[in-house]
């Protein structure tokens, strides 16, 4: 019996670095391990003893692609401890800056990281050689997301203007006006993107996932909601730790999450879309239907379509918020520390990002817990790779390796949030 092992070193086109290890005996998969290293562990220790206002800026450094997610989850957690609710236009501005993050992150992943897989290009550079206009559109779209983040966050990478209770400064209506025409262009470009990615060749691949995402009664949940699943979960964010468990795996420095009752679960665009299709705008719903999607999508390869549909939605949502915007009197509500534990959970572009903090009466952090979306998806990624390799076990090494990378990239794993080296190795015993 021939044994073989697939190892991918420094997986290309995932956000950061990491490694995948697949061991096979003949055509049977013996073991699949995604090895990742988690800065959140370092940050949890780093935050203890610091002031409750600091995680908003410090945790934004965990990821250069989704700093807003870290800011929003940490701010929400601290506001809950202190009994403060950010509402009205301040809440709307938070949703607006989050729309900017989704636009820039989705544009980056759809065009520069994911599309080259389907089109047979090794990287975005190779794609740009043949299709410069497509890459230029991606960069323009991404730039508009960045501009939203710059305007509200002070700068696009590690924004500095968000704080517990709101913002340090808020824009006037006039400040937001120049974005309107750009966002209208972005909405059209996103619709064009949906049409483009709908034509890509997709492997016939589905699993009966348990999808977990936020759900809100009035909107497509981004920065607030209850945690729900398609298999019966419906909890307040404060109940997270009663239902989700992180296990340390000896093969990896990261933690793998699972649901206590049922095991693996799936977070991110597919989960959000499948649990909240009814909350998308009519335009986004129609774009999805025209692309051949139903209200539920279980094919992770089609996450490229779902990300594009979500981009249409957040462009519209940003336009709506700007249209209805009135400058609030104060950029933030006052927040006084009080002893207790607070919970925050928001939808990073890659899925739910959970923060929990315990602080004392002076606002000093006693305990911090951060669960990034990629560590929550880690088991499901391994399960997909396992399933996929079984289906395609007879393929030669190079093709199988390519497909494994693609199966991982479906989740847009933010390895800088959750790991250090992603390495795919294949060896023969």
């Amino acid at each position: 019996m021939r044994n073989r092992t697939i190892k991918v070193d420094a997986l290309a086109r995932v956000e950061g670095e990491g490694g995948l290890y697949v061991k096979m005996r003949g055509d049977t998969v013996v073991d699949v391990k995604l090895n990742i290293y988690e800065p959140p562990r370092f940050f949890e220790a780093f935050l203890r003893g610091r002031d409750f206002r600091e995680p908003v800026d410090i945790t934004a450094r965990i990821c250069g692609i989704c700093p807003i997610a870290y800011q929003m989850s940490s701010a929400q957690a601290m506001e809950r401890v202190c009994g403060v609710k950010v509402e009205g236009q301040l809440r709307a501005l938070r949703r607006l800056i989050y729309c900017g993050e989704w636009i820039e992150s989705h544009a980056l992943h759809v065009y520069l990281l994911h599309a080259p897989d389907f089109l047979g290009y090794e990287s975005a550079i190779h794609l740009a050689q043949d299709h410069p206009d497509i890459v230029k559109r991606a960069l323009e779209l991404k730039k508009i997301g960045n501009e939203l983040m710059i305007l509200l966050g002070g700068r696009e990478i590690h924004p500095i203007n968000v704080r517990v209770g709101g913002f340090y400064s808020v824009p006037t209506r006039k400040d937001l006006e120049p974005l309107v025409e750009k966002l209208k262009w972005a909405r059209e470009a996103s619709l064009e993107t949906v049409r483009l990615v709908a034509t890509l060749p997709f492997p016939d691949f589905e699993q009966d996932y348990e999808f977990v995402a936020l759900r809100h009664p009035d909107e497509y949940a981004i920065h607030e909601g209850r945690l729900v699943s398609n298999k019966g979960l419906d909890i307040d964010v404060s109940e997270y730790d009663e239902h989700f468990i992180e296990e340390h795996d000896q093969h990896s420095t990261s933690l793998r999450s699972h649901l206590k009752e049922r095991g693996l679960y799936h977070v991110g665009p597919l989960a959000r879309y499948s649990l909240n299709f009814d909350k998308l705008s009519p335009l986004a719903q129609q774009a999805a239907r025209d692309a051949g999607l139903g209200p539920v999508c279980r094919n992770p390869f089609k996450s490229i379509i779902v990300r594009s549909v979500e981009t249409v939605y957040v462009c519209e949502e940003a336009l709506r918020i700007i249209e209805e915007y009135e400058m609030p009197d104060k950029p933030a509500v006052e927040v006084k520390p009080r002893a207790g534990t607070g919970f925050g959970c928001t939808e990073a572009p890659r899925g739910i990002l959970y923060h929990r903090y315990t602080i004392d009466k002076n606002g000093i952090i006693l305990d911090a817990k951060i669960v990034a979306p990629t560590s929550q998806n880690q088991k499901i990624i391994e399960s997909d790779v396992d399933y996929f390799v079984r289906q395609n076990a007879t393929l030669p090494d190079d093709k199988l390796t390519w497909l494994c990378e693609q199966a991982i990239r479906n989740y847009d794993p933010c390895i800088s949030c959750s790991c250090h080296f992603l390495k795919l190795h294949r060896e023969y015993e």
Partner: protein
Amino acid sequence: MNDGGIVVDRASAGTSKARVVVIGVGNPYRRDDAAGLVVAQHLRQKTPGHVTVMEHEGEPTALLEAWRDAHAVVLIDAVFSGAEAGTIHRLDAQADAIPQELFRYSTHAVSVAEAIELARVLGQLPPKLVVYGIEGKDFSAGVGLSPEVEGRVAELAERVLRELADAAEAGD
């Protein structure tokens, strides 16, 4: 924006029209990966007024934006090539392709090297783009540079200043 009492760093807003841009790239919580940021901090007070100094996390498409319209760009990043820690590398992006393996520690898979190559393909490379790499040793989670890297920061900052002076003399 109303005055909320903070300095909003518009220099890093990605729309700079400055003729000369210095970009320090890195992650402050990955030890030697922060070297580019530390050098940029050294340079902030020492560069002439027409030079924009940015600290950048290194996300490649944002880098393309950061150097858009710039005539001359000096980029400083930590690298890992197996050379002695603290070794300073100088690369001229206009003259050569940037070896991708140098920047393997970028927190983004589309690394600084790929950003430069992407810009080249799209015709968006600045007329002058010099990359200074400083060899790192420890890229683990944490703060603070290793002594070998820390010990070369001032020298690297001086070399960047000389680079800027030469560019000014050459009329770039």
